[in-house]
């Protein structure tokens, strides 16, 4: 599904990713943990194709295609989804119209006709149930005036609508209370399937109690320094990141 090889990237001339390797197979859930500034969010942005990030080396293969050769829209249409850490507000654009444009963009890529009104609304109703997104939120402007939890639920709703091959969750747990965390996690779990992969970026182990990963990787200073099963997250929680850092130095 995703094969990252020696990826190097910088932003505003500061080198952040310094040779990152990661392979994700279909159906797998990988978690990336790491201290602040280790490059977690940069990795998400680089994979999604944000222009301010300069790729300086390495390669990324996404489902047989050269990901780095595609622009952000093409990556999205090819099935890469990023749930943002800070979803932006777009005043005056209703959530529904926004999603219709997104769904039709993907359909165009797949050579399909734009979706019919009724089919679209049925789909919205169906997917909104996953994260308990009520009609009021669906018709409001994209994220405008949404609480932190509502914004994150909206991200998962959008993910469900777009049915990506690979979903990257960038600190989706940040700013969530325990109820919102549960709703969001249940939404994600409902979408797990043998064809869909997840890359869960988080600072805390807490999220991984709800979304149980197959693999956990620790990112320090732009490189993955340790990989393991879900028990690695617990170990990190207990010992902190310093333990890993000391380990590397030693």
């Amino acid at each position: 599904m995703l094969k990252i090889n020696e990826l190097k990237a910088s932003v505003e001339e500061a080198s952040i990713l310094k040779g990152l390797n990661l392979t994700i197979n279909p159906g797998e859930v990988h978690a990336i943990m790491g201290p602040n500034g280790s490059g977690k969010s940069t990795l998400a942005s680089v994979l999604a194709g944000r222009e301010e990030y300069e790729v300086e080396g390495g390669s990324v293969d996404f489902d047989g295609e050269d990901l780095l050769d595609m622009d952000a829209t093409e990556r999205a249409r090819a099935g890469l989804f990023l749930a943002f850490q800070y979803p932006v507000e777009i005043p005056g654009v209703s959530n529904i119209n926004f999603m219709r444009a997104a769904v039709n963009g993907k359909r165009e890529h797949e050579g399909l006709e734009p979706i019919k009104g009724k089919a679209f609304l049925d789909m919205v109703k169906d997917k909104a149930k996953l994260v308990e997104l009520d009609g009021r939120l669906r018709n409001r402007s994209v994220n405008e005036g949404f609480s932190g939890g509502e914004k994150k639920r909206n991200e998962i709703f959008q993910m469900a609508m777009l049915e990506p091959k690979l979903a990257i969750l960038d600190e989706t747990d940040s700013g969530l209370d325990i109820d919102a965390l549960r709703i969001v996690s249940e939404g994600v779990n409902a979408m797990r399937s043998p064809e869909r992969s997840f890359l869960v970026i988080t600072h805390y182990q807490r999220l991984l109690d709800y979304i149980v990963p197959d693999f956990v990787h620790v990112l320090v200073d732009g490189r993955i320094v340790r990989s393991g099963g879900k028990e690695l997250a617990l170990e990190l929680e207990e010992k902190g990141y310093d333990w890993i850092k000391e380990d590397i130095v030693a």
Partner: protein
Amino acid sequence: MAYDGKDKVLEEVTGKSYEFGFTTEIESDKAPAGLSEDIIRLISAKKEEPEWLLQWRLEAFAVWQTMEEPNWPHLNYEKPDYQAISYYAAPKQKKQLNSMDEVDPELRRTMDKLGISLEEQKRLSGVAVDFVMDSVSVATSFKDKLAELGIIFCSMSEAVKEHPELVRKHLGTVVPTRDNFFSALNSAVFTDGSFCYIPKGVRCPMELSTYFRINESGTGQFERTLVVADEGSYVSYLEGCTAPQRDENQLHAAVVELVALDEAEIKYSTVQNWYPGDENGKGGVYNFVTKRGICHRRSKISWTQVETGSAVTWKYPSCILKGDHSVGEFYSVAVTNNAQQADTGTKMIHLGKNTHSTIISKGISAGNSHNSYRGLVQIMPSAANARNFSQCDSLLMTDTSGAHTFPYVEVKNPTAQVEHEATTSKIGEDQIFYCLQRGIDAEQAISLIVNGYAKEVLNQLPMEFAVEAQKLLSISLEGSVG
């Protein structure tokens, strides 16, 4: 065989004579360049006008000669040579084309994007249409229906002939001749325009649109429009169209006057898409318009405008809130791209008690363009408990474009409440990226964001106009983010 040959000859002859007829007509019926009393007499005579109107024009000309072109707008353009312009040309037919293949492909592409039907495209671009009975009957039944209600909707020339008492009573009462340089010029030389009268208590059942008149006479360089809504009546009036309009006249100086008598309501919506010139603004239309309405007791005038065209726009649709409890509204979206310049806004003059006004202005600047909002809110001593709310937002699409706001507020009554909000923002990289990440392409992303930004204003437009206006905004901003 012989028959075929004859047909061919006929075709050639008719084709040719048409060509000649077209050019000779211009030559013979065009006044020499320059403006003088003689030219004004010529215009008035050609139009078979009554003496009072000729005198009115001559007075306007005398006033205009004492005036100077304004320098205060935030605009930079080469002032036209008013003596090099020809002020009268017989209403001429648009050059007829034989098929859509002859239409400028750029124009076609734009019309396709606007979703304009093929028949409509032909009409707009002057392609000979096998005149569809339908559209004739639509126009006719439309006129019948209006006549039944006593509504008058015709060209200004026709109104001068058929309804001189109404024209004479109201013409120049809202925008006096000496109001400004361009209104004086227009008063002296206007050639045509629209006239509309809604009788007492009548609610006009359809949107009145110049669309139904455009076939009868082309739009002029100096248009004069007068809308009178008698007591308790209502009318929604649409001006312009979303399709790009090219015109050989560089200077346009229109005057629009609205009269809302007691408890009447006028909703006036404009979509302006004159040719903006090339990327450097060369060849674009200069649009200097004076639009103003007067509100009598408990009446309401609402201006909504979507301005995307012209090289230079100078325009301030205004309301004089004379009657107690009258309401004035101004909703505007002005888009400038490339080298376009717009200085637009409104004036709300509160004279009556308990008068309310609302101003929502959304400027969008792209390319190297400059977009200015200029507004005046004036609360006169007589206007007890007057209220105004103004919101002026500017959206910058590039680092090289400019947004300027010149709000003037004059309050002479202590009971007034005046609120002003203004914001300037650059289109968000984050917003665009968010859209891209959802699989929406850059062009559509900008379209979504800009339409969302302008939604408050677009919502004021009648439905059929609103849809086209949304598409128009997107087209005007194509490839404009930097």
